[in-house]
């Protein structure tokens, strides 16, 4: 049976992880490679690296980083942040990334999704969607949540699936950072209207939030950053707990 995935997310700036981490046994907590190795050894099913500087020069640095990560870990990983060309994707996949994540640029240039799916297959195209609940509906936001659009979340989700996205990474901006749990209702609806895997993001604060999101809808993976980085939730303990709750989990 296919297991639900737990995905730590690392924000990268100038080749360093930005949010602080709290592991005593890491020599250099800012080194993404070392952190990646730590997570892969402790049961992460997959890792996501988001480059938050994302200028053109950084693409090359990011490719080098992907290469180093690939050399050091034996689980799959996704790279995102500022990807705008087929060439960007080509170099990241060649460097060992399994999937790439695109966000704002896909909203502004939806054909880019088709282009990537044709060139590399749908399986490596993750479309990240940030959305906020306003006036009884969910609206898509761009540039890390700074720019509102009139695009409705569920319309956009259906469109990205049609265009060849292999997976959706949905972040609720209303829940992100609150540690009050994932946006289960929106996620449940999302899983009803599309037939591709969905990664839930935003709001993880305790064990129960993970079991809640996996039980509420057909959600395939849950992503979190700070709760893992600050060791508020241990990966191994989380996975054992979920397994005890009859959720299919790889231990």
């Amino acid at each position, binding site marked *: *049976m*296919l*297991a*639900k*995935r737990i995905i730590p997310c690392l924000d990268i700036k100038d080749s360093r992880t930005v949010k602080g981490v709290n592991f005593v046994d890491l020599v250099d907590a800012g080194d993404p490679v070392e952190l990646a190795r730590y997570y*892969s050894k402790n049961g992460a*099913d*997959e890792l996501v690296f988001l480059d938050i500087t994302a200028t053109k020069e950084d693409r090359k640095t990011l490719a080098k980083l992907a*290469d180093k990560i*690939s*050399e050091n870990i*034996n*689980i*799959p990983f996704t790279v995102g942040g500022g990807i705008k060309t087929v060439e960007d994707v080509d170099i990241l*996949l*060649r*460097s*060992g990334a*399994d*999937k790439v994540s695109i966000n704002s640029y896909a909203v502004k240039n939806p054909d880019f999704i088709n282009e990537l799916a*044709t060139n*590399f*297959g*749908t*399986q*490596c195209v993750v479309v990240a969607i940030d959305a906020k609940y306003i006036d009884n509906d969910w609206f898509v936001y761009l540039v890390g949540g700074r720019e509102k659009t009139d695009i409705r979340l569920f319309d956009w989700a259906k469109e990205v699936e049609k265009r060849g996205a*292999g*997976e959706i990474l949905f972040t609720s901006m209303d829940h992100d950072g609150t540690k009050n749990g994932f946006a289960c209702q929106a996620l449940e609806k999302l899983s009803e209207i599309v*037939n*591709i*895997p969905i990664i839930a993001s935003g709001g993880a604060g305790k064990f129960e939030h993970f079991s809640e999101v996996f039980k509420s809808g*057909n959600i*395939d*993976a849950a992503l979190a950053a700070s709760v893992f980085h600050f060791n508020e939730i241990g990966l191994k303990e989380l996975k054992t707990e979920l397994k005890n709750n009859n959720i299919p989990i*790889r231990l």
Partner: protein
Amino acid sequence: MKIAIIDYGAGNTQSVKYALKRLGCKGVLTSDKEVISSSDRVIFPGVGHASSAMKKLESKGLDLLIPELKQPVLGICLGMQLMCNFSEEGNTNCLKIFDSNVKRFDNSFKVPQIGWNTVFDLKTSLFNSIIENEYMYLIHSYYVPLITDTVATSNYGINYSTAINKNNFTGVQFHPEKSGSKGELVLKNFINN
């Protein structure tokens, strides 16, 4: 031990190379027929679209070479699928090493399948020291049905071949290079058996 990783412009060759390095082996990325033919082991990776991958193999003459290889060959993911007769992906004629067609998952489950799934009914030494129902990492929309050459099974709505073997040819649908220490064990078994 000379290990060739077939480099035909498709697939995640770098990860395979690094996985071998972690096992203390050196894999050579190559599309050179001489180098491939004279290697002790050949790994045939693949990620992407069947028809464009076949075109790339044809342009390098590798479509004729691969079925003739005599040493152990391991096809991974798309590499495994390309060793079959025909793929529904782009209605592509493939290498015809395994007498099976490659089908698309129907939409009763999410497509692509992405993540860690169990492998069971393990039949060959490729799975030495791997227990039944071990998790491996899979990412695919197309699959090889159960055939007489099936040597490991996974289930995604239906049971399908997660590994196949015939003479010196082996194919795995999962990614041993991305399946943690257990995946590395599969690679190690392939090299040592």
